[in-house]
């Protein structure tokens, strides 16, 4: 047997002996980092398993954790070789770290962890933990305000103590808490959540008093950026990123930001809202060095800037305009930059300059370009030099003042060609834009504010009065026509009645013994009145023959006419030649009169 073979046998025997002993050498140990935990906190469980084998690992089986939620798990293994008393021992150590959050307050138990190794099973002892309420835990910890300098570069540095207390938090960070005046400090606002976040509402960003603020990022939707912080997975959402440029030295506090965080989705899952506020941040703004400050330095010129000029075209005729551009480019607050002005250049007429700014973000830093454009018109021929321009800046990166300058530019001006205009039309200098507030009025004129006439109660009746009056007038005319009667017709209708009345009057005279001339006159009036009213014959102006003819012409009977004429003659005779009264004859006369009236009223019958 060779020496090599002997060594192998010895090793095999040794390994077998070690293997026989292995079951006894398995060590398993479980422990927590605390025996009390807040109900909204996290407990770390560490399971340490040591097995005497380099090749075969152990199977670690975690319990169901009835009182906890498993929020994180990691496992690592390491192999250890020990030499003791000339013997070599190989161990494998399996470390399992588990992050747990309690499900309820009170007593909680971590069930035994089981380990299987080479067909045999091992387990740890159960661990009892006391779960405290959130407020109780806060008192135990002692509320300590976050240090203003707790995070310089890493926005999540120093959060371990807070994360244990919250599943959802708003975190504001500033990358540079001791910036110079005018130097950029980047403010970031993150939302950190262990659960699902569906949206945010009513985000209130601080006012940033004491800073010139420019937006760097303003995400319109939540973008999840997973992060592991102390072994616990978090969803991190950037809400806002701003570039802040301090305006004056000293300590400035940035107020907390606030937001309502929504969780759950739509109608299927309950949607809830939680209000969160970030911590305040104090920034200690450093003053710019005074001792080395150039006399012409402007406080807005902080940053890393370069300055350049250009003139286009470089060769022109007299009177033809050229465009002069002065460009400042670099990192810093471009809107607060003060560029040097081009002074009076002999031989050049300068017009008002226009300024345009462009800004962008590069690697979280605000960069920009300020361009001053000016129209220059050469007024003489020859070489004209636009001088070098310079400005002093403070470069925070170098923590020192620098002077940046442009190169002088030569402009070649030649005589204008014959026939060309010496000058070109230039844009108007006095631009009068519409808009703005009008000047006030200086004279007061009172205005009547009485009700308009159509809202007055008299208006509509007055309007209706015209047609109403006309309608009344028309109606009254019609009514009058309706009720009007012809007096001649009326007289005809009443002729016999009137004549009979007179005859009755004559009869009354007989009773009164006034039977003389008056009697006969009354009878004659009765008959002639009847003739006048009914027949239209005025007997007074006619002879008896004419009267007879008129009556006959109206169709009256001859006998009736003769009787009438006889009565009239008798009455005339008695009136003008009175004699002794004969009452019988008088009554007969009355009767004849009545009869004649009756006959005259019906001429047709009489005629027949």
């Amino acid at each position: 047997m060779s020496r090599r073979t002997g060594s192998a046998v010895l090793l095999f025997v040794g390994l077998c002996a070690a293997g026989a002993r292995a079951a006894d050498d398995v060590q398993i140990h479980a422990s927590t980092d605390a025996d009390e935990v807040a109900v909204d906190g996290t407990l770390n469980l560490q399971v340490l398993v040591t097995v005497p084998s380099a090749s075969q690992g152990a199977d670690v089986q975690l319990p169901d954790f009835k009182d906890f939620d498993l929020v994180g798990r990691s496992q690592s293994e390491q192999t250890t070789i020990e030499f003791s008393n000339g013997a070599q021992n190989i161990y494998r150590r399996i470390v399992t770290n588990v992050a747990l959050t309690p499900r309820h307050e009170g007593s909680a138990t971590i069930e035994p962890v089981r380990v299987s190794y080479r067909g045999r099973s091992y387990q740890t002892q159960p661990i009892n933990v006391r779960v405290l309420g959130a407020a109780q835990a806060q008192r135990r910890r002692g509320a300590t305000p976050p240090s203003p300098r707790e995070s310089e570069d890493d926005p999540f540095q120093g959060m371990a103590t807070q994360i244990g207390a919250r599943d959802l938090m708003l975190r504001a960070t500033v990358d540079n808490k001791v910036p110079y005046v005018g130097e950029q400090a980047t403010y970031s606002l993150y939302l950190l959540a262990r659960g699902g976040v569906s949206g945010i509402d009513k985000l209130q960003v601080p006012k940033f008093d004491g800073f010139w603020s420019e937006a760097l990022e303003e995400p319109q939707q939540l973008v999840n950026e997973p992060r592991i912080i102390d072994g616990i997975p978090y969803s991190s959402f950037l809400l806002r990123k701003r570039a802040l440029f301090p305006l004056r030295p000293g300590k400035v506090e940035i107020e907390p930001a606030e937001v309502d965080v929504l969780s759950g989705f739509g109608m299927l899952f309950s949607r809830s809202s939680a209000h969160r506020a970030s911590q305040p941040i104090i920034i200690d703004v450093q003053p710019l060095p005074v001792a080395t400050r150039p006399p012409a330095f402007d406080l807005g010129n902080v940053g890393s800037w370069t300055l350049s000029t250009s003139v286009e075209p470089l060769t022109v005729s007299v009177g033809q305009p050229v465009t002069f551009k002065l460009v400042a480019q670099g990192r810093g607050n471009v809107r607060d930059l003060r560029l040097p002005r081009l002074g009076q250049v002999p031989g050049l007429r300068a017009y008002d300059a226009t300024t345009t700014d462009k800004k962008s973000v590069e690697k979280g830093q605000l960069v920009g370009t300020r361009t001053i454009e000016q129209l220059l018109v050469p007024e003489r021929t020859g070489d004209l030099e636009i001088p070098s321009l310079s400005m002093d800046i403070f470069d925070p990166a170098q923590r020192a003042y620098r002077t940046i300058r442009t190169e002088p530019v030569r402009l070649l001006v030649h005589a204008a060609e014959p026939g060309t205009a010496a000058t070109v039309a230039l844009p108007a200098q006095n631009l009068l834009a519409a808009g703005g507030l009008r000047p006030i009025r200086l004279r007061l004129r009172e205005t009547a504010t009485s009700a308009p006439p159509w809202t007055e109660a008299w208006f509509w009746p007055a309007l209706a009065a015209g047609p109403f009056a006309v309608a009344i007038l028309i109606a009254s005319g019609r009514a009058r026509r309706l009720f009007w009667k012809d007096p001649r017709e009326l007289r005809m209708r009443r002729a016999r009645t009137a004549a009979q009345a007179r005859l009755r009057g004559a009869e009354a005279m007989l009773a009164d013994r006034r039977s003389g001339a008056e009697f006969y006159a009354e009878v004659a009036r009765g008959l002639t009145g009847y003739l006048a009213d009914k027949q239209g014959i005025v007997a007074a102006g006619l002879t008896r023959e004419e009267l007879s003819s008129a009556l006959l012409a109206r169709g009256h009977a001859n006998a009736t006419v003769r009787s009438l004429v006889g009565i009239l003659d008798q009455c005339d005779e008695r009136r003008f030649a009175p004699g002794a009264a004969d009452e019988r004859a008088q009554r007969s006369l009355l009767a004849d009169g009545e009869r004649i009236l009756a006959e005259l009223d019906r001429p047709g019958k009489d005629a027949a």
Partner: protein
Amino acid sequence: MRRIFLAVLLAAGAAAAQAPRADPLRFPADIDPGARRKDAAPDGARSSALFDGANAAYLAGDLPRAGASYEALLQEGVASAELETNLGATYLREGKRGLAALHLERALFLEPGDDDARADLLETRRAAVDRLEGETEGREAFSRVLSPLPGRAGSIVLLVAWTLAWGLLAAHLFKPARLFLPLSLAAFALSLVAALVTAGAATWHSVALRRAVVVAQATPAREGPSERTATHFEVHEGTLVRIEDEEAGFRRIKLANGLVGWVPAAAVELVVPPGWAGQSG
């Protein structure tokens, strides 16, 4: 016949004097500057001095004092397009866009052709928070066409021409003469024109009576007249609205694009105070 005509006219006049006045929209009495005006008419010289002082303060940049002086004139019952325009400009410079819009609208009600007030109102609206989607230009054009109509003169011409037309017609019917009928027809034609002018002015007047401006910086428009009802949307100062109803300290407003909601009564102010509209509170 004349006696009958006069009797009818007298009866109509007496009935009109005793008839109750129409009141389509009730307004709270505490915002009736017309009522105050009835109590104390200002002395012209005093008003002028106060106005001059307010103008001087405005020009010196003392806006609070200028505003207070202009408001004092309003309290005195002075109604003037110039006063309202200056007060609107003062509030605008103070950043009170709601009150600025209110007084400039009032200036335009008093003097629809006031170009300064219109320009300042445009300036006020340029900075307004609320941008109404779907707002039709027709409403503004409608207002611009109708507001300058001489409604008062039109109504008086209508009354005179109408009565004259009927009188001439009656004369023609009872005592025909050669000129009565043509003159009557001409008077009827004039009445028609005057009636159109009056109708247009009355339409604009009735619309103007319900116009209001949001004077609160921001106020929620709710589903009903209660703080407990859901919020539909939010309106901000300077927005022109139409008052449609009033109940329990809330007013139902309608925006130019048709949005409707209930807002606290104090958050909006009527462009036309009841005293100006000739209505009692």
